[in-house]
């Protein structure tokens, strides 16, 4: 049994107490003295030329302090893009300017045109209605292929076309891949859409800018997953404020799922306006505004082909994707369809040759960037769908076809043809586990029973690989990242032995305050209650990259272990002095330093007190105090993997899909808090099922957002979703981080969409609808019914 409160314990979350009593402190709960309110007037058309903005009437209205338009931002930088892609010809991607407020043209519905600052939000909103916008409609491009056609309207007039980049990976393998296809015994082809989604964390974005003119200090309170990244991007690239004069605070944040990674115009605006007006400026997004201003996710159109030899071994994969960038490049948008997608195309399989082509396209839609999984769900969906389709075409069992081509447990480390090396895994084990706990063997009988009731039952399987904790910094730098990808931690031991941790990682639901304390408590052998975790404020945390890509424990936790080990090493030296023993003989266990083989000991608090009250202390050889900082830059990604099984029943009368059971067998390496890990998987699966069955962000051909609220965008609700059976007992620890952990935040969202769609197709095929080989997501009743009835 794990020590209560230590690694492996399902410790209750300490943060829950404040959340459950209404005492969380979210950004919108912050109201500063003298605060003014900002209201963003946004474009209602997808594409238009701004001929004039008349703000005179608005400026004269009650309570209005100032109205800002693009001309107030002359000399201010645009929103930066954090990742540069080099195309297949060695050329840099086309990178348009992204102004804080629209300049000359509006490029998507929601593009901000002007901002009213007033004493109250109502006054600001009323005044915005009095702004006269003269915007001349231009034809909009919404569909990616149409956007690339000759003569298509250009989103950015100064670019040569709407093509951001045309990326080939691995370009050198292309000819060999073609050759393998020419020699293939069988080729399976699948065309699919990975639809646009809206991340929809329940807390809308908020920014509060504050300025202290007497010290020239700016502070931004914001709903961010990574306050240091915002400080760096906004300070250095947008507003020209040096870091020591800029503090960014991300307090309690109500979910992120990727969409709160990015630096947004509203953050820069509120910081800028607070400096101009010398008073705090607050902006709170409404949900409708979130739909047209939060970066969206996915939106890929793909054709994938799988080549097999006559023994059903995978011999090559080629895939061609159109990836929607929207109207501007959001912070990490270019990396999602490329390095976060192409590198995952090997999946769990030994396919020797892979070629990935991605065309990234500008359209008159909201920018698209990372959403839970980011590139990896898109890779997994196409791969796991095409394998299923191949199994059907070849008349072989989809489980066996996967197994036959799995990278085997004794083949790790395994270098794939798409530039990554998996350290550990055991895919047969996770597959076996999933089949066991889902009672796959009993499926046929259950299908019979469904049939008697006039229902079609299907079982869908998906096996995923994920790459988490993107790294190392020098490699991603070569790949175009304009940021490092390390993480940091400061361990400040207090005189009486309690510990204050400052992490560059950020929690917006993941429970770091509990789990990070468990790690430190276990390492030192003290009660977790003695350890406090601080995060989210650049004023007290070391420079860190924040939380996304399932990196917190694998990267941030590793920094924490490193810093804690530094503390322990110093504490041992102090203990050796106090115990008059050699440092090599000092052992730390259960919060006590003992001279090996003796009963001489000093407890943790005795050592920490000596560090700060150094009366009996080797001052000649060691500084007083006990505080260490570490930065950890991973040597590789981590590679969680798992088998997902979904059992559905389709109503042939209505096309309605009901999920009867959902089983996940994941290998996350070692697990610190099983309860929290399971919760992360539940949430990921829910979002994946949401994508598979419900959610879809729809634009009409004029670029109007049709699904712009919860009335039209189908968020999964409690009675849409099943219970989940999740297991993480298959463990192949990561070999290159100290905790042997892999990351669990995105797995559910990656593995579940193909499992669900494979199940729906299986149900239809078993029900005699053998012509249905694919249904695009979401598999809504109307789509399923139409597919069944198309002949």
């Amino acid at each position: 049994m794990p020590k209560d409160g230590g690694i492996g314990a399902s410790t209750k979350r300490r943060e829950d107490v404040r959340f459950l009593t209404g005492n969380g402190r979210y950004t919108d709960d912050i109201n500063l003295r003298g605060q003014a309110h900002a209201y963003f007037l946004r474009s209602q058309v997808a594409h238009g030329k701004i001929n004039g903005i008349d703000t005179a009437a608005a400026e004269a209205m009650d309570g209005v302090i100032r109205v800002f338009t693009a001309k107030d931002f002359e000399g201010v930088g645009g929103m930066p893009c954090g990742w540069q892609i080099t195309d297949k010809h060695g050329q840099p991607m086309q990178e348009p300017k992204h102004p804080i407020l629209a300049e000359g043209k509006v490029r998507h519905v929601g593009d901000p045109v002007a901002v009213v600052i007033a004493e109250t939000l109502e006054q600001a909103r009323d005044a915005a209605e009095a702004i006269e916008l003269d915007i001349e409609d231009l034809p909009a491009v919404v569909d990616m292929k149409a956007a690339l056609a000759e003569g298509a309207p250009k989103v950015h007039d100064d670019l040569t076309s709407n093509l951001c980049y045309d990326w080939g990976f691995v370009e050198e393998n292309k000819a060999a891949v073609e050759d393998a296809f020419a020699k293939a015994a069988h080729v399976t082809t699948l065309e699919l859409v990975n639809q646009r989604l809206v991340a929809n964390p329940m807390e809308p974005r908020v920014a509060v800018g504050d300025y202290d003119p007497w010290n020239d200090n700016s502070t931004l309170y914001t709903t961010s997953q990574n306050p240091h990244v915002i400080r760096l991007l906004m300070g250095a690239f947008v507003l020209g404020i040096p870091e020591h004069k800029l503090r960014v605070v991300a307090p309690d944040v109500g979910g992120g799922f990727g969409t709160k990674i990015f630096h947004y115009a509203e953050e820069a605006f509120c910081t800028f306006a607070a400096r101009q007006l010398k008073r705090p400026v607050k902006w709170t997004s409404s949900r409708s505004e979130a739909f047209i201003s939060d970066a969206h996710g996915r939106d890929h159109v793909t054709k994938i082909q799988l080549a097999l030899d006559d023994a059903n071994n995978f011999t090559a994969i080629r895939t061609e994707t159109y990836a929607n960038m929207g109207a501007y490049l959001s912070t990490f948008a270019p990396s999602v369809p490329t390095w976060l997608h192409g590198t995952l195309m090997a999946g769990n399989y030994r396919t020797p040759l892979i070629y990935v082509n991605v065309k990234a396209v500008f359209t008159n839609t909201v920018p698209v960037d990372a959403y839970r999984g980011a590139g990896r769900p898109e890779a997994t969906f196409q791969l796991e769908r095409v394998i299923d389709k191949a199994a059907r075409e070849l008349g072989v069992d989809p489980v066996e076809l996967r197994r036959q081509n799995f990278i085997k447990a004794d083949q790790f480390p395994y270098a794939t043809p798409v530039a990554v090396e998996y350290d550990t895994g055991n895919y047969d084990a996770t597959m076996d586990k999933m089949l066991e706990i889902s009672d796959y063997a009993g499926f046929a009988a259950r299908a019979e029973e469904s049939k008697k009731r006039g229902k079609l039952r299907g079982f869908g399987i998906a096996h995923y690989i994920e790459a988490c904790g993107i790294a190392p910094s020098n490699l991603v730098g070569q790949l175009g990242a304009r940021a490092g990808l390390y993480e940091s931690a400061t361990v400040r031991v207090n005189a009486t032995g309690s510990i204050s941790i400052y992490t560059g990682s950020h929690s917006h639901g993941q429970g770091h305050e509990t789990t990070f304390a468990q790690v430190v408590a276990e390492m030192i052998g003290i009660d977790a209650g003695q350890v406090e975790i601080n995060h989210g404020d650049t004023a007290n945390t070391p420079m860190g990259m924040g939380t996304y890509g399932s990196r917190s424990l694998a990267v941030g936790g590793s920094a924490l272990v490193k810093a804690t080990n530094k503390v322990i090493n110093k504490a041992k030296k102090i203990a050796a002095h106090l115990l008059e023993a050699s440092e090599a003989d000092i052992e730390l266990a259960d919060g006590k330093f003992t001279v090996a083989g003796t009963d001489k000991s000093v407890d943790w608090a005795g050592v920490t007190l000596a560090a700060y009250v150094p009366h009996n202390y080797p001052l000649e050889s060691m500084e007083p105090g006990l505080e260490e900082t570490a930065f950890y830059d991973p040597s590789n990604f981590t590679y969680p993997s798992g088998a997902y099984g979904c059992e559905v029943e389709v109503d042939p009368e209505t096309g309605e899909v009901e999920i009867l059971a959902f089983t996940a067998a994941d290998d996350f390496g070692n697990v610190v808090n099983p309860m929290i890990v399971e919760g992360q998987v539940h949430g990921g699966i829910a979002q994946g099922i949401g994508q598979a069955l419900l959610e879809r962000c729809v634009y009409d051909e004029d670029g109007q957002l049709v699904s712009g609220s919860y009335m039209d965008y189908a968020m999964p609700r409690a009675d849409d979703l099943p219970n989940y059976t999740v297991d993480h007992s298959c463990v192949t620890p990561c070999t290159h981080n100290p905790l042997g952990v892999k990351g669990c935040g995105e797995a559910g969202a990656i593995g579940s969409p193909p499992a669900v769609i494979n199940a729906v197709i299986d149900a239809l095929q078993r029900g005699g609808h053998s012509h249905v080989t694919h249904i695009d997501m979401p598999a809504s009743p109307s789509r399923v019914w139409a597919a069944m009835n198309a002949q």
Partner: protein
Amino acid sequence: MTKVTLTVNGRSMSGQAEGRTLLSSFLREELGLTGTHVGCDTSQCGACVVHMDGQAVKSCTVLAQDVDGASVTTIEGMANADGSLGTIQQAFQDHHGLQCGFCTPGMVMASAALLAENPKPTEAEVRHYLEGNICRCTGYHNIVKAVMAASGQDAGGAVAAE
């Protein structure tokens, strides 16, 4: 602006409201009770649920001026008198029924209303009742377990350690 006086969590409180001020923003901005959250502008998410004269309401659908004289309970009023978590709150913690915590006040208030109406709901009834409350983090599994446990029924699955 009109003065609105009401009882909140057993205490008489008053503040100023415009005709268009919603109860949700009145509680948050005027009374400083920021535990009630606002997650949408179409009355769909349930983050703002409070109890008004014993009934669960979405406070974003109620005008502040219309609640003059009413008795309102918010999430801030759900703990026990000694400050410890109430039964439903404790069940949410024990069963990991929250992650980011943003939907949580509304979930707890809605669950309390359900159990007042139907002390031993089935799991399907819990899911159906919570249809008006969106959670993006938990996938609902543990919320449903928490509500079942709070009703004194076997929740199954893992329970947190101390």
